[in-house]
């Protein structure tokens, strides 16, 4: 973004054409156009403020739908299989979430289930609810601002990728004692994480909020 120099520069500029950096409050004029793959960064603290990608909404929708399908596949197929001294044991992703379900640790099971399954799925659904009408050229969904705000607020609590690294650590820990065979759910969940990271790289908050705003005016 252009580096603001003095107060006079902002005199008489309509509020619509100004943006404040959420991280340091520096005031900027909204650039008239930011190229796809280019970034507008805050002139003061360096935070990325705008990073549009062309065709982003269609891609986000495609990737979110893919991620939902992968999650269903991951939940309903074998996850890990353990063999030691001729004995077998296996666990699904739900089993991992329910590992704390005995007695007073039950709330932790619910939290783990929320972190690795419910919140990631909810975020995907909220993003689809927000973006599908906009791409289809219809007015924005009535609750699109609430839905997208919630999707953003839940972002730190969506921990599917941390779970995948957790699986890797657990595998290293049991590697010497037993043989672990990853099942289809393991690969589906890994792919899900990859697709989600890719989807997040297409998400530009300014672009989405501007589209919701424009979609509401119709």
């Amino acid at each position: 973004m252009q580096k603001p120099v003095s107060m006079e520069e902002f005199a008489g500029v309509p509020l619509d054409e100004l943006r404040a950096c959420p991280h340091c409050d520096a005031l900027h004029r909204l650039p008239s156009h930011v190229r796809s793959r280019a970034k507008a960064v805050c002139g003061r603290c360096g935070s990325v403020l705008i990073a549009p990608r062309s065709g982003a909404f269609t891609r986000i929708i495609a990737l979110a739908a893919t991620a939902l399908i992968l999650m269903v596949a991951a939940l309903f197929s074998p996850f890990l299989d353990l063999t030691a001294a001729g004995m077998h044991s296996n666990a699904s992703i739900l089993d991992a979430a329910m590992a704390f379900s005995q007695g007073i640790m039950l709330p932790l099971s619910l939290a783990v289930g929320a972190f690795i399954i419910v919140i990631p799925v909810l975020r995907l659904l909220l993003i689809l609810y927000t973006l599908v009408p906009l791409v289809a050229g219809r007015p924005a969904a009535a609750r699109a601002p609430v839905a997208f705000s919630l999707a953003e607020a839940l972002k730190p609590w969506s921990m599917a990728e941390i779970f995948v690294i957790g699986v890797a650590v657990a595998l290293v820990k049991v590697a010497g004692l037993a043989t672990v065979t990853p099942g289809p759910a393991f690969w589906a969940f890994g792919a899900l994480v990859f697709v989600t990271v890719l989807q997040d790289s297409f998400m530009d908050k300014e672009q989405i909020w501007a589209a919701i705003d424009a979609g509401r005016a119709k």
Partner: protein
Amino acid sequence: MVTARDAGLVGCTRCGRVHHMGTPACNRCGAPLSSRDDTSLQRVWAWWWAGLIAYIPANLYPMLLTSTLVSNTESTIVGGAVELFLHGDVGVALIVLIASVVIPIAKFMAIAFLAVSINKRHIMGEHAQHQLFSVVEFIGRWSMIDVFVVAILASLVRFSVVATINPGIAAVSFALSVAFTMQAALSFDPRIIWDDEK
């Protein structure tokens, strides 16, 4: 550098849109507006103490209960790392120590340091504080990995009487400690870092 506050405006921290000072909520995304979050540091400290208190039982009580035909062992976070070390797995022991002890303690210290040193420029510049905050915010959620490892081990190692791993109560307090410190970082209003800049 002109801030929204200097210009008599208030910026939305959720979507970046700018409004006249005194506007209660953003007209684009609906977020409540405030030029500076005055209660930010109070909430940071409240969550910080909650996180620190929850971190104590996380270290005193067992994280994993391993039962085999011959023995029952309970291992705490540090105890588990020491066992790995004595077993010869120095590398894995170090990783466990860094992920479960060094990073959480560093996180507590970093948040406290930010809250105490804010606007004390002889200690740390704005850019360095901004960087430190970004790192703390980024790394916070990754501590939950320990809880997931316990969940995976406990759900996987179930050879009836021969060998079974059960989760220990420390997993609950560790998860709470991570969630509370995440809340502490999320409560921090980074805009106050820059307020004294000329």
